[in-house]
């Protein structure tokens, strides 16, 4: 890697913040017509690559303190999920730095990356292992994961037969069974039913009591007001507000329905 180029999130201990995001920017290059086959290169060798540059994030800077519940809100396409993926080390930012202090458990795009052809049992084994559980820990926690997801009857069925709500419950159950310091949650409340939401809320309280850090991306402003210590508002990849949840959600409401204000 060149010196000065953006580096992967560093997992260091001495820093104070749980997550330190410093002037992070990210541009997606989206070709107009994806030219990924050789034939297209041969047919149109001189045609310029029709890039469309989409600015996903622009100079995003904030810190999340250990034990804090941090909300990220904003309209669709505002860069919330991209930001979460950069914090999780899944995407690489173009400029800026991200420092993460502690063990991360990511819950992104409604899941933890299941293989639909495998059974729930095999998926728990694979994803639990990917998240860092040893075989013994998996054995000890397997029943807890199944119980939390309430999928006992379906545990040996292939995931392709699961509904999206069942998917979500299983993924959440795995993500929270890791001894994480920091939990990244992307739209965890979007497709679950009321009972599952209440279960999530109960677990939020439990993690807060344990001093864990939670970053939640959501459209549900009520949840942010109820649980978050602080929040950030992203619009078009830029930060429009950072601070107390009530102030930030108020700004978002003003942006979303300007006439009402």
């Amino acid at each position, binding site marked *: 890697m060149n010196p000065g180029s953006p580096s992967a999130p560093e997992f260091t201990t001495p820093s104070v913040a749980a997550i330190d995001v410093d002037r992070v920017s990210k541009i997606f290059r989206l070709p107009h017509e994806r030219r990924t086959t050789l034939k297209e290169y041969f047919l149109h060798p001189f045609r310029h690559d029709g890039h469309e540059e989409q600015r996903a994030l622009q100079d995003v800077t904030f810190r999340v303190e250990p034990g804090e519940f941090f909300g990220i809100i904003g309209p669709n396409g505002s860069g919330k999920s991209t930001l979460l993926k950069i914090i999780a080390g*899944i*995407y690489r930012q173009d400029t800026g730095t991200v420092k993460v202090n502690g063990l991360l458990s990511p819950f992104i795009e409604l899941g933890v*990356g299941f293989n639909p052809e495998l059974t729930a049992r095999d998926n728990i084994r694979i994803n639990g292992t*990917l998240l*860092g559980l040893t075989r013994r820990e998996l054995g000890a926690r397997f029943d807890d994961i199944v119980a939390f997801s309430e999928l006992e009857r379906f545990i040996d069925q292939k995931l392709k037969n699961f509904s999206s709500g069942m998917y979500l419950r299983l993924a959440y159950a795995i993500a929270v069974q890791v001894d994480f310091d920091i939990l990244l949650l992307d739209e965890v409340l979007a497709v679950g039913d009321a009972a599952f939401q209440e279960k999530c809320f109960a677990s939020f309280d439990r993690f807060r009591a344990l001093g*864990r850090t939670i970053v939640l991306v959501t459209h549900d402003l009520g949840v942010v007001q109820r649980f978050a210590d602080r929040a950030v508002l992203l619009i078009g990849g830029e930060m429009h507000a950072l601070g107390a949840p009530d102030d930030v959600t108020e700004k978002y409401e003003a942006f979303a329905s300007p006439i009402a204000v």
Partner: protein
Amino acid sequence: MVEATGILHAPRPGGIGHRLRILQVIVLAEFKLKYAGSALGYVWSVVKPLTLFTVLYLVFTRIFKLGSVSEFYAVSLLVGIVFFSFFSDATNQGMVSLVHRESLLRRMRFPRMLIPTAATLTAAMTFGVNLVVVVAFIAWERIEPQLDWVLLVPLLVELYVFILGTALVLATLFISFRDMGQVWELAAQLMFYASPIIYPAALLPQWAQEIVFLNPFVQILQDVRALVLYDDLPANNVTAPDVLGEFGRLIPVGVALAVFGLGVALFKRYEPWFAERA
């Protein structure tokens, strides 16, 4: 922090133990997946190379009379086909593995190299099943095991290193150029006929031998045959030192290591962007 919050911590992910556990669960699941839902299961992994073997054996002994060059033509051909199937399957599965698991890539952070490694190891398990058939053929031919067969171990290691390196190069290229699928299928087919699998190595002219022995696969195959079919006819029993000189084996071994180094370097260079491009 541990004391302050009272949380018991699992060992931090990213260590070698964590990586090995990931490889183990993925390889076992993939192997299961490959043969689950098919009536004959693992039998298929043996049927495919054996069918190819039977067809080629009949064609080249009955029509082209290649069987006369060696009493071990049959087992020699089978070794060639089984080794080539391993090379071809492992590199193909390694190439497409990242794109097939893109949903995992976009949701979790883990060393990406584990995905193509797991794919090649899954192919290695099929190779292991096929080797049982090869051993049965060797027993049938009443070839007695020799002490120097332990040299098969470094040869198999070299083969795996070459395969993994090739798979890493292909997996990186396949992310951006999906045509690599067709290109590699063609290249592998050419390699099959350019290697002394069906025909004895000595049938090739000297200049052609010097070229094909640069390929680590050919060097490994011929070394394996020389070790196991030790009293084979001279036309079959040609190894790298016969063609490339006394230290000639070092050239294909060097090629295997260079391909592996290139694969690792290329993969690491583009790894941060796999999740968004796969």
